[in-house]
């Protein structure tokens, strides 16, 4: 990754142009050619630095709710537990963390009731009863971009 790649990454993380030729718009802003912006972006995508280029939504504006859940899972059972939890499409992030509550996952669904019902299913299928359900009651920040 060189300075031009960094310039491109810092530009395209938010407000990606909604214009017929978005890469040309970016190229003009950064003093590059459209072709170079596209080929570098493809390369950054293929090398895994860019996970995805697209839209991120506010779940509430689409009629969905989201929450953060945490479970206490014995170490040797983490794989199996994650397999059950990750099967739900509404589980978008799941991390093993260094705490007694060690498995932390986010859950998006059309309603709170559906999330509760699914957590109940997970508890029944895995025998892990202690699952915290911690919906956000106030958002102070969701960061738009990371300087690279």
């Amino acid at each position: 990754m060189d300075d031009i790649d960094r310039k491109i990454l810092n530009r395209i993380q938010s407000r990606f142009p909604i214009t017929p030729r978005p890469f040309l718009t970016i190229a003009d802003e950064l003093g590059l050619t459209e072709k170079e912006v596209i080929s570098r972006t493809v390369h950054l995508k293929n090398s895994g630095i860019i996970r995805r280029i697209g839209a991120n939504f506010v779940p509430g504006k689409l009629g969905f709710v989201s929450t953060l859940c945490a479970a206490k899972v014995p170490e040797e059972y983490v794989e199996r537990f994650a397999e059950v939890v990750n099967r739900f499409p509404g589980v978008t992030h799941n991390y093993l963390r260094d705490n007694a509550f060690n498995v932390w996952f986010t859950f998006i669904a059309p309603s709170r009731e559906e999330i509760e019902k699914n957590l109940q299913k997970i508890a029944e299928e895995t025998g892990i009863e202690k699952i915290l359900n911690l919906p956000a009651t106030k958002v102070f920040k969701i960061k738009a971009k990371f300087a690279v």
Partner: protein
Amino acid sequence: MELTELQQKIIASVQQDIPLVSAPYATIAAELGVSEERLLKELQALCDRGVIRRFGATLRHQKSGYGANAMAAWQVDEDRIEEVGRKMASFPAVSHCYRRNPTDQWPYNLYTMIHAADEESCRQTARSMAEAAGLETYTLLFSVRELKKTSMQYFSTDDDD
């Protein structure tokens, strides 16, 4: 919020990867069977209405200089939560800051995601945040392993090809 069928189709499309070509919206519009002009108009409206929170690239943190992330969970007096939440949010290393209800088993009510080059930098940031907010009770949870990371698939259909 009412969403038209077209809006739902657009959302289902742009929640995926947009094609990395000269005229990506023309490609998407053709797939959806609408004009490019209409698609651009609808997309801009979804941004303006705040339905789309962010439109652009999502990076893999580990590969872009942010090797460590910690979730800091804080215990904050409720009458200070606004002030402290805003203060925590002002730290550049903090990507997310939320208030959540505490529970019997988990007494924390403010959550911040801290991203940095390594674990020590995360710890240092958390110490600065604690000091700035005058807080003593918090816990840092480092991510040991990513078990899943995807984007939510809204309004997607199983049989759309």
